């Protein structure tokens, strides 16, 4: 399940593969809930959750949505704006944390 409207053949998954996808999603979601409800430090829990959600999103896009079987150009077309947005988000959120901590005079 990956192609665009003009594609002649799509990305087929066997029933067994679809159950594997469901299993991976359920396990990752379960892990996220367990981590969120644990009593670890706030920073550690947030960090682990971010790693888990990035792994889950990448797995979902590449396997379930079939981006992994698309052409290299299509992969780059999707990945490059996502990476730019991620870096942009990282800079802006870090700046907000910086300001909230009072390390920058406004």
């Amino acid at each position, binding site marked *: 399940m990956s192609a*665009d409207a003009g*594609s002649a053949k799509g990305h087929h998954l066997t029933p067994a593969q679809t159950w594997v*996808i469901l299993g991976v999603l359920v396990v990752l*979601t379960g892990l*996220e*809930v367990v981590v969120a409800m644990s009593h670890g430090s*706030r920073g550690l829990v947030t960090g682990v959750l971010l790693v888990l959600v990035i792994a889950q999103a990448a797995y*979902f896009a590449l396997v379930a949505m079939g981006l992994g079987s698309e052409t290299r150009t299509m992969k780059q077309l999707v990945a490059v704006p996502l990476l730019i947005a991620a870096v942009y988000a990282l800079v802006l959120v870090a700046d907000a*944390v910086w300001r909230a901590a009072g390390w920058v005079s406004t």
Partner: protein
Amino acid sequence: MWIFLLSDWLSFAGLLLAYGILRAESPVWRHPGEPGLNIPFTALLTLVLAVSSVTIIRAYDASSAGDRQATSRWLAVTALGGLLFLIGQYAEWVGILHPGLLKEGLVFGQSAYASTFYVITGFHGLHVVAGTLYLLVTLARNLRRAVSANEVELLGLFWHFVDFVWNIVFVLVYLIPTGSSP
């Protein structure tokens, strides 16, 4: 379809970015008196969407195999998943068996916590509404005359996208600790 999904994703990314900045800047994210979010219930809704992502793959497979009846069946099951999710979101916001967040004091505009919650989950909910309508229209068309595998594939991509975004919203909005006691 990928280009459309990418542009749609950037809308979500803008909202999530604003959420991240507001949250990072805020010394107290959830103020005393504001209700917490029901994580187990929302995890169940996440599971419903995950299952519906699998059923739409089965619909596509059935459509590729030319099995119109099975296509209709899997499309109907997927649409049911969308409807269940929407009912769950209504229960969470407004309440069905128990009072919802609105009655518990999470009022839009009252705080950044409340406003970002309603805007982000509401925007996603609109996508679920659109996806469910898309599913029902495709199902109705398939009942009259078989729809092509390509059409089901495009529908599936959109539905996967709705699930993809929800997984991210679930972690960022529901799971990251607020650092505030209820």
